[in-house]
C-alpha cells in the first residue's frame, strides 16, 4: 500500500469528508511524527510500535573511490521498534518471545 492508496481507503470509509481533508490528515500525522523525531523526542503508538532517535557519532570516513579521509559529522537516524501486540498480530496471534 502506498500513501495515495491509504488516502483512498480512508476517504472511502469517510464519505462525509473531502479527500483534500483526508490528505491533510495523513500528512499532518506523518509530519508530526517527523517533527517530533527531528526534535529528539519519541513517538509511542500503543499496539503498533515506537519511533525513536539514534545518534550516530561523528567519525572519520573515507571516500571509497579515492581513499581520501573525510570527516562525517554526527547524525541522527530514526529507529522503529515494533510493539508486542503488532508482533503477535503479524504472527497469527501467538506470542513467541524473542
Amino acid at each position: 500500500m502506498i500513501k495515495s492508496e491509504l488516502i483512498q481507503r480512508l476517504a472511502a470509509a469517510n464519505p462525509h469528508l473531502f479527500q483534500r481533508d483526508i490528505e491533510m490528515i495523513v500528512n499532518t500525522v506523518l509530519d508530526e511524527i517527523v517533527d517530533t523525531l527531528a526534535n529528539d523526542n519519541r513517538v509511542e503508538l500503543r499496539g503498533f510500535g515506537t519511533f525513536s532517535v539514534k545518534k550516530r557519532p561523528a567519525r572519520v570516513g573515507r571516500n571509497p573511490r579515492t581513499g581520501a579521509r573525510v570527516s562525517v559529522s554526527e547524525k541522527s537516524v530514526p529507529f522503529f521498534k515494533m510493539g508486542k501486540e503488532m508482533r503477535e498480530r503479524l504472527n497469527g496471534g501467538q506470542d513467541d518471545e524473542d
Partner: protein
Amino acid sequence: MPGRTITRADLCEAVYRKVGLSRAESAELVEMLIDEIIETLERGENVKLSGFGSFMLRDKGQRIGRNPKTGVEVPIAPRRVMVFKPSPVMKARMNGADDAGEE
C-alpha cells in the same frame, strides 16, 4: 536526554488544530489511519509512505537460540517481523534538512 514522548493524543491534537474537524472526529481519523496501516501489514502487504518511509515485512527462518542466562539451547520458531526504512526526506529533516540530496 530523551525528551518528551508523543502519543496518539498529540497526533489527534495536531490534526484538530490543522484540519478543523472536531476533537472526537480527529481522534477517530488518527485511529483509522493507524489501523489501516496495521491491517495492511497484517495481510502481508508492505506499506510505503512517500516522504516518510516504508514498513517492510521480513520472514525469518527457524534458528537455534540460546537462553543467555542459562546457556540452554532453544529453537526459535520461524516468524515474521517488520522493519521501518526511513525515506531520504525523513533522514534529511532529522539532520537539519540541508543535506537532502545525500544517500
